[in-house]
């Protein structure tokens, strides 16, 4: 994964821009960072253009503008994964944990 690619992710502007404080990316909980890493890794491993994720993120935010940013991010991630045939709703239901894994 190149710095140029992650740079493209990091410089997104507009409503879809990653939240920052003092220029730093802020993840309020570990799952938020994991969601970012999953999206970046899937796009990279499948050789997609980052815009494939970005437009789904924009759509997810537009779908529910009052939802928290990373909730929209997770919805966009799920849409990408399902659209690319990597998972479906049944597989995700079956794989959902009921407890937080040990850190």
């Amino acid at each position, binding site marked *: 994964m190149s710095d140029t690619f992650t*740079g493209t992710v*990091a*410089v997104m502007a507009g409503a879809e821009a990653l939240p920052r404080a003092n*220029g730093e*990316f802020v993840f309020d909980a570990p799952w938020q960072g*994991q969601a970012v890493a*999953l999206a970046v*890794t899937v796009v990279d491993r499948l050789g997609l253009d980052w815009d494939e994720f970005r437009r789904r993120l924009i759509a997810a935010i537009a779908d529910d503008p009052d939802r928290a940013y990373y*909730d929209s991010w997770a919805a966009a991630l799920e849409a990408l994964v399902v659209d690319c045939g990597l998972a479906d709703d049944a597989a995700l239901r079956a*794989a959902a944990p009921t407890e937080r894994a040990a850190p």
Partner: protein
Amino acid sequence: MSADAHHHPAPLAPVEARVAAIEAVLTEQGLVDRAALDEVVRHFEDDLSPRNGAKVIARAWTDPAYKARLLDDATAAIAELGYGGPEGGHMVVVENTPTVHNLVVCTLCSCYPWPVLGLPPAWYKAPAYRARAVREPRVLLAELGTRIADDVEIRVWDSSAEVRYLVLPERPAGTEGRTEDELAALVTRDAMIGVERR
């Protein structure tokens, strides 16, 4: 935490469980693994943010010998803390004093020391910033909310591919006894570019 709470951890939020499910399915397929995901998170938090630069400044505030090395050969002093690389070569640190304020710009393009400051803010690349930082820095800074007293000289440093500048702000008053980590948390990206002074 009581023994009871220990045995009944807080339930997962639906979104958290769904992200964990996505990770589990993709891990099963061999597309992702936890170590690589953690590395991506670390990259976003550390390499693409000004956190490293803040650590350099905090070290200089607490260690006079380090500060001397930083002002003498910034590239080497920054490398001591493990930061560097092509985008961070040929660093020069310029020190703010009660009578001098330093401001960094790149008039040609948007040269910027990524390894210490992360990604440049959008305004850093804006033609208006690049032109006015040189022509009327005092007016520009005032518009950005940073009023520089008339008796303080403003020095403008033009970064290039050859030399990248980093401002060493003055240590805030009343921070005696703070740890290096506490001090680093006070260092803002904008202060290290010089559009903020406090």
